[in-house]
């Protein structure tokens, strides 16, 4: 057994990159001269070919990506891409990801961009690498390049043959990529498009080292933090001496309102943290907004920056009669709810900091750590190691900073710091509460002629480097010399952030989208899967449904008559057909109450197209249950069909859980969501049957799918509940109390 464990440890260190290899890395985007031609995807900011691909001496290939695995299967998909372009088998390719010492800087792994950005870079880099290897072989063998063929790294022109590994020494990848070698057309793909199994799963089903939590270093100690009882509480007194005297305690870190401990054993660190918490006296004030429905009245009055997201000129008077329709929708604060609380390992030695982190952006994390700790970026290495699924900005970056702070007082010993469940629930940045006010005009031919979407929202991105006027780490705000919080910035269209997916893809002649961007953040917020898209699509697609019903039209037909985009039409039609949609079916009144609803969105109006049909039952107590969900998805060229299905299916189940169950609770002073008992999510008995149908478009660009089903799912469920009950649910989550209030 001991041998196995040691092997695991070695493998882990190998995978997560304690061994730092040497080769050139292109500088960040800033050093790229303005005059150079743009390169595809991540290549543009990381132009050196050997930063992306290397031919090793042991008959393998290593490729590099700045993106990281967060449970979405990106490393499997990128390996498929590299293997196909290089003409080697999947097994020969090793992939190194997200490490400030070793990989390209591709910023954050967010927004369903990875296959588009890193995938494009790898396609072009590998196509170029292959061409260079072939050119060298052609010279050596004295055979024209066109006569050469490649099979798993063996170049042949019968009878002559040689391998990539024979010729690699004569090819120099230490130069800028040119992207002049076209990647293969879809017809030549052998691995792209196949449901290749995930490369990280064998370790995960058998207890191999797979997560940052599984990293063990020699001399490593264990850390825990003690957070204040509420956001703005201040520490009056704490008995550090008593806690320092507890068994195994190595250090008690106190700096302003920041408290942490490190101990030899994990359970000792937990006990020390409990003792520290018990002895701490804090002053706090009831400074949180009201919760529940009253919150939204409060939200409307909060100071906001008004932004016009889209404004088309007023329609010329048509002269006909128009009907005006209005509705408001709300979404509460919701939690990422990662199953594994955030964790990091940090070591500060000889003035250098090494952090292992499940942050979604190792380079932004390094930049922020450098500013927060006043260290040179060159003295910090951040290496990605997987965490539990994060679905956005959870405690990952905060815990990395906590671990770094504690590591400073450990004389070179590494520390593994994991948040407790309560730390994660009470302190992670939630998905923002949102209020949506919709207004539309319908003409006599039941055509929508004017559409207005008004949003009240906090920021959806308070991640590291979101705004260099402040520091994004929770712990940094608690120090004696507290860091300034970054001023929130709303990400611009076309991606948008609070306004994501608020601009309709439908052909409404007048479209106005207005954002009241609330800059106060009494409750901590940041990016949660889909950002504003979840609530905006909820409002947009519920409102479409309301108008269709008011106009006496079938929801599918009504959508299609306002939609020219052929790819959008195709997923709507396919979802309806596969679900067995019956036009104008009025299910409500039936016992038991059953209903069906449809909704559609193209994520960000530029990633995957997704339509979802949901079936629900609603009982007399207002208990809604989703029984079935059918999705149709167009994600362009599909790299890994099972990977896309897995993400869409997971997204549907997660979104359905947000929709029926989830809301962060607080009183006027404290966050009261502290454990799973306070924040129920879907369990096996809640989960619907899910079917995902893909439309592959081999000649189109691959489109991100990781967040594509969040929006359509919530609206499809809302529409299904309306169909089942005849009453429209407009306030999330649709708990039995809320639905009961509607139907009695």
């Amino acid at each position, binding site marked *: *057994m001991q041998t*196995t*464990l040691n092997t*695991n440890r070695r493998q882990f260190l190998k995978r997560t990159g304690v061994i730092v290899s040497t080769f050139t890395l292109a500088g960040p985007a800033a050093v790229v001269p303005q005059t150079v031609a743009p390169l595809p995807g991540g290549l543009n900011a990381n132009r050196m070919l050997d930063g992306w691909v290397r031919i090793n001496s042991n008959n393998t290939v290593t490729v590099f990506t700045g993106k990281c695995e*967060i*449970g*979405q299967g990106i490393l499997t998909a990128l390996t498929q891409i590299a293997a196909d372009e290089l003409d080697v088998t999947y097994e020969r390719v090793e992939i190194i990801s997200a490490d400030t010492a070793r990989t390209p800087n591709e910023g954050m792994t967010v927004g369903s961009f990875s296959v588009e950005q890193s995938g494009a870079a790898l396609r072009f880099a590998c196509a170029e690498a292959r061409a260079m290897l072939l050119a060298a072989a052609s010279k050596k063998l004295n055979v024209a390049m066109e006569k050469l063929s490649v099979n798993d790294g063996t170049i042949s022109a019968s009878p002559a043959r040689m391998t990539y590994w024979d010729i690699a020494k004569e090819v120099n990848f230490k130069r800028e990529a040119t992207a002049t070698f076209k990647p293969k057309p879809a017809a030549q793909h052998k691995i792209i498009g196949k449901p290749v*199994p*995930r490369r*990280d*799963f*064998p*370790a*995960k*089903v*058998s*207890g*191999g*080292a*797979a*997560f940052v*939590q*599984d990293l*063990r270093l020699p001399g490593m100690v*264990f850390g825990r933090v003690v957070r204040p009882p509420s956001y703005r509480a201040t520490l009056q007194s704490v008995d550090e001496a008593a806690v320092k005297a507890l*068994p195994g305690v190595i250090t008690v870190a106190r700096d302003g309102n920041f408290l942490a401990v490190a101990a030899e*054993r*994990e*359970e000792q660190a937990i006990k020390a943290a409990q003792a520290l918490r018990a002895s701490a006296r804090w002053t706090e004030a009831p400074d949180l907004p009201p919760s529940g429905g009253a919150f939204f009245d409060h939200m409307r009055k909060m100071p906001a920056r008004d932004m016009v997201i889209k404004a088309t000129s007023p329609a010329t008077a048509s002269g006909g009669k128009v009907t005006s329709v209005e509705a408001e929708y709300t979404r509460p604060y919701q939690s990422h*709810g990662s*199953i*594994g*609380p955030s964790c990091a390992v940090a070591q500060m030695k000889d003035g250098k900091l090494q952090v292992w982190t499940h942050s979604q952006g190792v380079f932004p994390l390094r930049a922020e750590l450098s500013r927060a700790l006043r260290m040179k970026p060159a003295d910090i290495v951040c290496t990605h190691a*997987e*965490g*539990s*699924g994060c*679905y956005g900005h959870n405690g990952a970056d905060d815990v990395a900073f906590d671990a770094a702070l504690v590591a400073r007082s450990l004389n070179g010993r590494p520390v593994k710091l*994991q948040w*407790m*469940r309560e730390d994660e629930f009470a302190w992670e940045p939630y998905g923002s509460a949102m209020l949506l006010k919709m207004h539309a005009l319908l003409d006599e031919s039941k055509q929508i002629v004017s559409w207005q979407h008004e949003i009240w929202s906090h920021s959806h991105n308070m991640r590291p480097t979101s705004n260099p006027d402040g520091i994004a780490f929770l712990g940094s705000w608690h120090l004696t010399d507290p860091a300034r919080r970054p001023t929130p910035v709303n990400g611009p269209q076309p991606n948008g952030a609070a306004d994501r997916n608020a601009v309709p893809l439908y052909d409404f002649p007048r479209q106005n989208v207005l954002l009241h961007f609330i800059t106060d953040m009494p409750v901590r917020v940041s990016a949660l899967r889909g950002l504003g898209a979840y609530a905006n699509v909820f409002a947009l697609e519920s409102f479409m449904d309301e108008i269709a019903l008011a106009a006496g039209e079938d929801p599918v037909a009504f959508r299609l008559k306002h939609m020219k985009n052929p790819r959008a039409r195709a997923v709507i039609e396919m979802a309806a057909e596969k679900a067995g949609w019956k036009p104008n079916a009025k299910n409500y009144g039936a016992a038991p109450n059953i209903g069906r609803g449809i909704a559609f969105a193209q994520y960000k109006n530029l990633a995957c197209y997704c339509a979802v049909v949901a079936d629900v039952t609603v009982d007399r107590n207002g208990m809604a249950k989703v029984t079935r969900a059918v999705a149709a998805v167009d994600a362009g060229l599909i790299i890994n069909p*099972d990977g896309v299905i*897995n*993400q869409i*299916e*997971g*997204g*549907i*189940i*997660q979104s359905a*859980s947000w929709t029926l169950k989830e809301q962060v609770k607080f009183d006027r002073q404290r966050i009261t969501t502290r*454990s*799973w008992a306070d924040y129920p*999510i*879907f*369990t*096996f*008995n809640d*989960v619907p049957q*899910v079917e995902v149908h893909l439309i592959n478009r081999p000649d189109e660009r691959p489109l991100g799918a990781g967040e594509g089903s969040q929006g359509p799912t919530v609206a499809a469920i809302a529409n299904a509940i309306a169909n089942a009950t005849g009453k429209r649910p407009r306030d999330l989550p649709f708990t039995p109390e809320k639905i009961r209030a509607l139907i009695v």
Partner: protein
Amino acid sequence: MPDYTLRVNGAQRTVRTDADTPLLYVLRNDFELNGPKYGCGMAQCGACTVHIDGRAARSCVTPVSSLAGKAVTTLEGIGTPDKPHPLQKAFLDEQAAQCGYCTNGMIMAAKALLDSKPNPAVADIKNALNGNLCRCGSHNRIVRAVQRAAGVKA
């Protein structure tokens, strides 16, 4: 601190710690086992599931002192990458995860079910796993994996 001798995956192991130390930390830190995961420490999520004398138990709330004479089995103890347990193989065949953080608990809870009920109905599987949380939404794949493993065993 007293010594505790435990039988883990068939081997005798000794650890010096406090009586109330949760088994989870002993398994992860002293015995360097990665299978059981910390998720909540309050018996709410199932990420830390192991078997004690063949029954699924939450190692985050099991004091190490309660295990004298009992056999502890972890994910590592039921199979290896080369010789996977039918459940481990079925989870791979069904690609029944996204992040995989819950996987340990799912497999160990499912194994307890199959050990006592080799041919469970879908409702049995869902009920047996209902206390194990998955945030990625891999539930349906997990149910299929358990069905597949049951088929293999039958």
